[in-house]
């Protein structure tokens, strides 16, 4: 079994969000970068669990990004991937990224491609579905549980107001979210071992981006909170009814 896990880098969840160059670029100065939580906690850890259950499993990681991604790729390798591929390109266009990943996936003939539910910076929720279409494979999105028996996967995915259990035969693409696995911390052995694992850098294939970011805006500053005395909570209900008109 060969699994490809898509790993992306995002600013730490507490990073200050600001923009530079006339609001056309994210101001990355002093920002701490992390593995996108969905990719790390759910996609990667579930892949590692599958390998623990069947040690013949091979896990490859793929990242589309510049050399500044290498520290987070090493961390992902320390958690448990076997080897990593970095496609040396910087883009925020989902189609461009998905095309690069699909290219790697085709060459490696993977049985399973795991992505995170979404990147917490650009919030596309798109790369997984695009990779699936490019590979002409089924796509199960927003998976909360994943089990394998032979080449049949049983997957629970979130639907509006509940969940659905699906059965799909490999190969397939799955986007992973909470429920798939529990967060892990890399141990010393993993960290040492990661240094000698292969991190192959490849050049991108030529693809036209379909979208481009023209500019960023910050939301208008919020007016300060209107406080109601704890002695007269009914006043809050009146304000919500008469002033805010939401109840």
């Amino acid at each position, binding site marked *: 079994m060969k699994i490809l896990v898509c790993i992306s880098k995002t600013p730490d969840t507490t990073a200050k969000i600001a923009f530079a160059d006339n609001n056309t670029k994210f101001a990355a100065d002093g920002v701490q970068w992390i593995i996108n939580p969905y990719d790390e906690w759910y996609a990667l850890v579930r892949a590692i669990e599958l390998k623990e259950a069947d040690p013949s499993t091979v896990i490859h990681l793929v990242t589309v990004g510049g050399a500044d991604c290498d520290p987070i790729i090493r961390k992902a390798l320390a958690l448990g991937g076997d080897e990593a591929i970095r496609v040396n390109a910087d883009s925020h266009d989902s*189609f461009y990224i998905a095309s690069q990943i699909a290219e790697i996936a085709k060459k490696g003939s993977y049985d399973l491609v795991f992505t995170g539910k979404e990147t917490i910076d650009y919030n596309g929720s798109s790369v997984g579905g695009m990779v699936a279409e490019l590979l002409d494979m089924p796509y199960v*999105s927003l998976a909360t549980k994943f089990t394998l028996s032979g080449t049949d996967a049983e997957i629970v995915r979130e639907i509006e107001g509940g969940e*659905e259990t699906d*059965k799909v035969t490999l190969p397939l693409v799955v986007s992973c979210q909470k429920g798939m696995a529990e967060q892990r911390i890399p141990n010393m052995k993993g960290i040492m071992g990661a240094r000698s694992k292969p991190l192959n850098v490849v050049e991108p294939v030529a693809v036209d981006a379909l979208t481009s970011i023209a500019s960023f805006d910050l*939301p208008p500053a919020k007016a300060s*909170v209107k406080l109601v005395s704890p002695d007269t*909570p009914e006043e809050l209900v009146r304000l919500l009814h008469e002033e805010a008109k939401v109840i």
Partner: protein
Amino acid sequence: MSVLIFLDQSEGQIKKSSLEAASYGAKVAQQLSTSAEAIVLGNVTDDLAAIGNYGIGKVHTINNDALNNMDAQVYAKLIAEVATSIGAKVIIFSNNFNGKAITPRLSVRLKAGLVSGAVALPDTTNGFTVKKNVFSGKAFANVTINTDIKIIALNPNSYSITTTDAKAEVLPFATTADASKVQVISTDKVVGEIPLSEAEIVVSGGRGLKGPENWAMVTDLAKLLGAATACSRPVADSDWRPHHEHVGQTGLAIAPNLYFAIGISGAIQHLAGVNRSKVIVVINKDPEAPFFKAADYGIVGDAFEVMPKIIDAVKKLKGV
């Protein structure tokens, strides 16, 4: 040329978030001086002619039992077929769970640039640029779509439904659907509850409520207001509440008209899932709780003392 809107259905009924998409799509069609048409897949019990009320002229249907379960692979192919046959240049979805599964595939199929998480009408004065949420609601990006066909996935609750009085023409679309490679074994829906992602009012509790036995103050208020219930991550992690209620960076992102937060500190990762709410109310005994900075209304006080009085006042307001 036309604008095509995908109407998502559940058990035969068109979802509210799709009616928002329909209203939005009708407005985009107006902007581009063209017509708005819709597509719906599977068996629908709703009166589809009434979709005209949302500004849609024609509804294309593919009425096939096999399409009652959404498989993105099958759906994307059919939608692409309809889009091509009517010459759709802009295709609009709700960015709900199904939208997130189908739009990326359709984007590849039609080589159509996709903006997911749109929050406003496109700016067509110079190209085609759509504002979307980024950084989990902490900022917006204005994304230009550079392709001939464009796909927009509109965030639920970010465009108001507008209605007129009109009837849509319902047109069965003749085609054959591929067999799905995804076999649905079971579905499990919380019945009688409002899905969190569609709720206009959400009442939410955090660790400040001390334990699951105290949740009546959340569920009672929710029931009175016709609201959905939510919670912070540690609450779901401790199994005080079901996991699907967890909102925030790693849970669900919601944008109701009213978010009522009780005993939640307002950590940045929690705010990431709720900061698009129109009105935020915070009940917290700590005046320094970060949530007050994001709130519109608040009470600095003990939830155990304040909430019963709030519930009484709401009962009075609702006449129950």
